[in-house]
């Protein structure tokens, strides 16, 4: 597998922890790459439990939200689990406005997420 460009991946006791390389997730080609790199973790590398750590993310567009929704769907279809963490207030507000706080499981930080996965 080539090294992913849009995400950094690590393992914590069997849980795949993903951080984002970009602080502003806007560029459409980068969003496509981001989606593909996330899907590959499920489909090619058979990861099932995920923490997406948003600590680096300062801005994201609705196109990026769409990708995250597709990723959540993919993880669910493969009986996996996904938790989002470390979301700063501005970004949390975007999830709240679009009611995606109902779709995604969100925890304050990685430790909280790892405790329930």
């Amino acid at each position, binding site marked *: 597998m080539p090294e992913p460009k849009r995400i950094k991946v690590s393992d914590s006791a069997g849980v795949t922890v993903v951080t984002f390389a970009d602080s502003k997730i806007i560029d459409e080609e980068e969003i496509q790459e981001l989606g593909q790199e996330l899907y590959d973790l499920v489909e090619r590398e058979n990861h099932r439990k995920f923490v997406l750590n948003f600590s680096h993310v300062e801005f994201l567009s609705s*196109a990026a939200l*769409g990708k995250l929704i597709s990723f959540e769907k993919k993880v669910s279809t493969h009986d996996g689990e996904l938790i989002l963490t470390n979301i700063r207030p501005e970004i949390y507000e975007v999830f709240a406005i*679009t*009611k995606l706080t109902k779709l995604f499981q969100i925890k304050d930080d990685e430790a909280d997420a790892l405790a329930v996965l």
Partner: protein
Amino acid sequence: MTHHNWSHTIQRSLPSRRNAHLESMKEILAKLTQLGWSDRELFGVQMALEESLTNAIRHGNKLDESKRVIMECKVSSERFWLRVEDEGPGFIPADVPDCTKEHNLEACGGRGLMLIRAYMTSVEYNDTGNRVTMEKIRGDESGELVDVST
């Protein structure tokens, strides 16, 4: 638009290709920073710019490079005003599915419109639906607080 003492007017005719709006968006945000807008306020303005310009390029003009997106933006220390027009057939905003409904959460593509409404003080479409005009007045309550309990 009521009379207002604008500090800058930025007009651009953008080609309908991916990311064509990024440079203009940066320019507008830089002007607002100079005018004293906070990072928190700029977040909402950037969302409105990103979503309205991307909608026009991608959904309005369908990435057809023979079509242009006309952007006019006025800024001051108190207000941000934006008009975006594309050459597409337009759409009826009321017909876009409500993305906050449980059954639309995963499928809906109207999230961008919802974000624009949340962060701007006013948003209006022309009858054809190919031109959107929006304004943010600093200090208004729209988009500042979201009740996440509902």
